[in-house]
């Protein structure tokens, strides 16, 4: 009986908080799109000059600019884009007239595949290695892991990727040095293309996560609650499973969410290093050709992904660590 009024009181508050969080997310996305639009619109030059520079005179550039609607004032262009975007129409590319949604969908699929494979390896390996090292804190095994992860977090991805190519593609010849799928095929059908990009992405993110989980384990293992369990005779494997692991993983959740967003939203270095057709290279090319609709489309998708994952991480952290829920 006592639980019932608590529940009734609790739901609207949760709902309110969820609504407030979603409203915040939408606001963040609006502001992000405006920011990206403003920087691309206000920078010198535009899509017309980028496409025709050196190949046509000022009159032809002016004609193209008029065709693309670039002679409207920036704020009408932004509102125009926003109005259509709210109706699900992301416009067409300035560069080749393809619908943005089609272009984005194809690239997003590739990025998602690469990111998901990496994430699937990252989470269990990160938690497992971090737990293993943290429980052996100060011993030889822990020092090896600590020095190894410290070295990996000191190597930028492009260095790791280059060294991997040197070893596995150039030296041993086991794997392809570039990961461009055959025309009309998805990388799904050629898993060997994914190996080196995934290893490259794993290097830094795995090392960071191992370090995070390891320090969480060490902290949890020194807590009063663990001392009480050990002094009460609870066997060590149960102490690890029920006391230490939850306490160590909870603080890692928001960080993992950020890595997930980073991995799924396209990873410029891995893509350009291996020629992999993902979101990040598409966005960088679109920025260079001042193809604002494509830039905005991808930016919106990636920012949306980031914001959503952060919200999910907050919710998950609150679920796993109810004490923090009350602190808000």
């Amino acid at each position, binding site marked *: 009986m006592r639980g019932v009024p608590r529940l009734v009181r609790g739901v609207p508050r949760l709902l309110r908080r969820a609504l407030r969080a979603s409203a915040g997310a939408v606001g963040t996305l609006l502001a992000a799109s405006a920011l990206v639009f403003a920087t691309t619109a206000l920078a010198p030059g535009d899509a017309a000059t980028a496409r025709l520079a050196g190949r046509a005179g000022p009159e032809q550039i002016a004609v193209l600019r008029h065709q693309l609607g670039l002679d409207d004032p920036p704020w009408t262009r932004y509102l125009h884009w926003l109005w259509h975007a709210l109706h699900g129409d992301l416009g067409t590319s300035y560069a080749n007239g393809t619908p943005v949604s089609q272009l984005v969908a194809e690239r997003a699929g590739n990025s998602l595949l690469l990111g998901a494979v990496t994430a699937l390896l990252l989470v269990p390996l990160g938690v497992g290695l971090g737990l293993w090292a943290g429980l052996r804190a100060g011993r030889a095994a822990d020092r090896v892991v600590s020095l190894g992860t410290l070295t990996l977090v*000191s190597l930028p991805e492009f260095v790791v990727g280059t060294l991997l190519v040197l070893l596995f593609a150039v030296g041993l010849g086991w794997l392809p040095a570039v990961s461009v799928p055959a025309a009309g095929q998805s990388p799904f059908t050629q898993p060997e293309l994914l190996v080196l990009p995934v290893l490259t992405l794993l290097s830094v993110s795995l090392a960071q996560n191992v370090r995070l989980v390891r320090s969480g384990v060490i902290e949890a293992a020194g807590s*009063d*609650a663990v*001392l009480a369990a050990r*002094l009460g005779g*609870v066997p060590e494997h149960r102490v690890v499973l029920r006391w230490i692991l939850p*306490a160590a993983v909870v603080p890692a959740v928001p960080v993992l969410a950020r890595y997930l967003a980073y991995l799924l939203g396209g990873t410029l270095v891995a893509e350009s290093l291996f020629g992999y057709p993902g979101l990040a290279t598409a966005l960088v090319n679109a*920025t260079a050709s001042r193809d604002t609709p494509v830039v905005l489309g991808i930016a919106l998708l990636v920012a949306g992904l980031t914001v959503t994952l952060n919200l999910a991480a907050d919710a998950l952290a609150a679920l796993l660590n*109810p004490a923090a829920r009350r602190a808000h």
Partner: protein
Amino acid sequence: MTTVRATVRAAVPKRRRLRAWAAGGVLAATVLLALAGPALAPHGPGEVLDLPYGPAGGAAPLGTDHLGADLLSRFLHGGRSLVLLSLGALGAAYLGGAVVGMTAALRGGRLDAWVLRGADVLLSLPAFLLLSVTVVATGRGSLGVGAAAAVVLFPEIIRVVRACTLQALQHDYVEASLARGERTWYVLVREVLPNAAPVLTADAGVRFVGAVFIVSTASFLGYGAQPPDADWGLMILENRDGLSLQPLAVAVPAAALLVLLLTVNLLVDSAFPGVAVRRRAVQLAAEPEPTAPESGDSALSVRELTVRAESGSTVLDRVDLDLAPGRILALVGASGSGKTTLALAALGEVRPGLAVAGGTVRLAGQSVLGLRERALRALRGRHAGYVPQDPRTSLAPTLRVADLVGEFLRARAVPRSDRPELVAAALRLARLPDDPAFRRRLPHQLSGGQRQRVALAAALAHRPDLLVLDEPTSALDPATAAGLLADLRQLRADGGPAILLVAHDLAQVAEVADEVAVLADGRIVERGPVAEVLARPASAAGRRLVEAVRVTAAPKALPRVAEPVLELAGLTARRGRAIVLDGIDLVVAPGDCLSVVGPSGGGKTTLLRCLTGLHGDWSGELRLAGAAVPPAVRDRSRAQLRRLQLVPQDPQDSLNPRHPVGAAVARPLRLHRPDLGPADVRAEVHRLLDRVGLSGEHAERLPAGLSGGQRQRVALARALAAGPDVLLCDEATSALDPPTAATVLALLDELRRELDVALVVVTHDLTVPARLGGRIAVLADGTVRETGEVADVLAHPADPVTAQLLTAVPALPEPAPTRTPHP
């Protein structure tokens, strides 16, 4: 005799220091090489010498790159812009981030919300998007890359600085500083920054690595330095295709990047370790004695136990202790006397940094020292239970009540089907409800007292022979603590386990324990039945402990003076929409003492914060020496601020750890008595330190070199330095052990008498007003329930809240005088 050989590893900090120095040295050399490189290079960065990817030798000591330029020269040219750009971006981002983050934390409210929202927007955009967009706006080259790196770093730095500042603002010494009326910049620069500096330095190290990542990656992607300029990232891009011909062209810049970043990371790691590795210390390589149960059936038997620290100092010195089944033995002693070490050693546990140097410990007749971990756990599972001190950390936050208790039953191989019944029994034993709703609760859904009871239930679940309780009530409010102790008595009456109770409060011990053992400097100096030790303490340590909890005589009612120095009328305070204080009236005369008591959550602290003006959202009238004072501290004049001075609660926190004692006491002098010259200030500081029972030599010390009692004396001297009419004391003695608290209270009483300063003392401890005398106001649920002379109110409480507070105060048995003074 068991022979015990303890192996203690060499001290870690020294090794860590060495590593930090080595990493720092290599880092400095690398940065110097990068900065001076262009001057040392034999050739220009774009000078073509030979065929592409030529071998090492001759004019090109490392070979040539993809264009045939000297690798060594390009390498030497390629570090300077990377290091300078990264440092520049980091500096710019930190400068901006620090200003924005600190302002947001200080101002709070809407500004803070907007800053956070803005940082979220930037964080939602991936780094490569910010990079490519910035480069479009600025064009390729160093400027764009530096700007992009700064933009990427900026929002995260805002968040770090903001969080760091918010944390720093919670310190008592910052509160004291704000209450004193210090300006914002002073608080930030002198109070916050010095203590945030280590965290921010470590953070800056990590961010520098991030900046180098961004800048070198941008170069690798072709956004940064343009050929023929050299850059380590660009070199890796250019020479990738010649990997098999001249691997050095890639390996050398890659190695340089690794050395630069690894040394920074090592330095941050060594100088600012995130978590201290608490090694599970001390292998006790001893042959376990044959574990035939000994004659005589004590639950615990300790013989000649000696424990030493790594430094060689002795923590426990040949301690003997016996505890018969079903008896309660209290271990008392000042902090640092070794009582917790002894309590843990009783269960075979030695904290990291300590080692058993000799002796035996028998738990239920079996030797525990030298047992392997697995055997030790099994032994504890059969015979022992432990309840830690702090209810906030004593339970795993994710384990439900029934699951927690169930784990302890599982450890004793109780079959799953029998567990629910035994869990319920354990909960009842600890006087907790055993209904399903309660059993599903998580620790955060329990009160502090309930948490301690759940820990107790878990420890009792498997019916141990020995229960060790480490100051189980010290973090509870008096009423809850009294309840818990009463239940321990009941447990004893019901034929429960032998209990080893670590305590620092003799009065509480008196009510539950059969025997008491007094520890001092690692030795048991006295032991015997409780009543005997309390009545006739034989040792100096025992006498000090007994003195501390005795209230000597009822203080006389203080003389009333016509003109009150502090008048408060109709104070109503809000927090958000909630009213937390409702219509409070208080009057204090010069040289008088007003104690504000009440249960936790009753509004005591808020009242204090309203008086100091730190909480400005209140209505009503505050008059100091007849003149009205505005609610918020920032609206008060310097003269008004002078009249009210705060003595904060926590001796660990009431003084800024970076300021020497003399500087802390001198600060209010500079603020409120600008006429004093430097020599006068020094003399005055010495006089004030003298006044609070310290001496001039303390002026040079940092707070870390002082005991808790000494720190509270310094905090008093600092408050007195302003020349106040009213001293506000926020639980000023609650964190001190009883003997020290008694001397600080005596000092307060003396100051009141001699300086004619009025005291307003907020406390949850009824012994404080009993010692200080004067008047008392009982505060609960935001209203004053009762006021009057201390002696009258304590003797004849008119309000149920007061009566309940009184029953919670443990009384000493005769012949000690009772604590409630009768008229």
